[in-house]
């Protein structure tokens, strides 16, 4: 019945999202698709520094921004690769994809293009005003999805892949000198 599961993954996504995706895919013998949307409202999205109006400086800023962006994209890919590897180890047929744009819209579009049967999304758990202003991806998805949606809610005690911990993990692998190179 469920043949294709789309997992909307972001760094904040709870480990529970992936765990339940894998166990669901295992028992239903479904294919997994991991999707990460590079969106401006993700906290780690690089910000263009345009306070300086000098052409030379703004050129420099742009270069810096581009570098940061590449870095950010690369980290996203690494993250997806790691999760996909986990899923493949569990014997699940897994693909991943990285898209740019509005997360909610991209998720729904991919779901209908790929003809997914189920979308798994995490919930940021924003309520009230915060939800109104920041926009709830899961809310958009539930109202516009072409298929069933499983919203996995964060429990406070469960482990999540926060960006910081992922950064630290990565930082340990990257030599010091290279790290400084990226920063400057």
């Amino acid at each position, binding site marked *: *019945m*469920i043949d294709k599961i789309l997992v909307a993954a972001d760094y904040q996504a709870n480990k*529970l999202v992936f*765990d*339940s995706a894998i*166990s*669901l895919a*295992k*028992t*239903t013998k479904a294919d997994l698709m991991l999707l990460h949307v590079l969106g401006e409202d993700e906290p780690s999205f690089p910000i263009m520094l345009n306070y300086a109006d000098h052409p030379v400086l703004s050129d420099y800023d742009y270069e810096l921004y581009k570098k940061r962006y590449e870095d950010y994209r690369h980290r996203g890919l690494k993250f997806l690769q790691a999760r996909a590897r986990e899923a493949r180890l569990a014997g699940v047929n897994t693909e991943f994809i990285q898209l740019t744009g509005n997360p909610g819209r991209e998720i729904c579009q991919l779901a209908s293009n790929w003809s997914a049967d189920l979308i798994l999304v995490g*919930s940021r758990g924003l*309520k009230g005003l915060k939800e109104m202003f920041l926009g709830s991806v*899961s*809310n958009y998805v*539930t*109202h516009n*999805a*072409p*298929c*069933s*949606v*499983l*919203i*996995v*809610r964060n429990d406070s005690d469960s482990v999540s892949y926060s960006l910081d911990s992922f950064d630290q993990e990565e930082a340990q692998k990257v030599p010091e000198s290279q790290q400084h190179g990226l920063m400057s």
Partner: protein
Amino acid sequence: MFNKILVAIDYSAGRKQVFDQALSLAKADQGNLILLHVLSVEENNPAITPYLRQHKDHCIHVDSRIMRRANEVYDQEWSAWKQQGIKILRHFTEQAIAAGISTEFSQITGHPGSTICEFAHSCDANVIVIGRKGHSGLKEMFLGSVSNYVIHHAPCSILLVQTPVLKESTSPKSIDKQIYA
């Protein structure tokens, strides 16, 4: 992971699909199912007219004998309505038990959204499975979306099942057709 699965069942045509997805979720995690049907006047009940939904003491301008008779009819209709729900629940429960999943069911009277959330809270459900009819825009605003209420108030994860009625254009013509069909 999802050990306790609360399934919100109603009389709509999509209930089978909701149940099927809940069942496959339960099989995935060896969870147990709790089937819940919320009895409410909001659910489309052709037998109960709005007039008779009023509290029994409200209609003083009608002959008391007529009123008593009306209330008797109302009670009969209501219990038949209730029985029908229980029959559905029992049918699904048997099906789930046959599939080797421990299942219980209950029927509660109340406002659907808040009752589902409260029940989920009180029985520590890990996930709520609920159908979604795919009303959007104005129609959602007026008809009130139970699933939307549950999404925003539930204490746990939610599996929204897209039930067949999906293709719904927002042109007023098609909405009229669906309402009066």
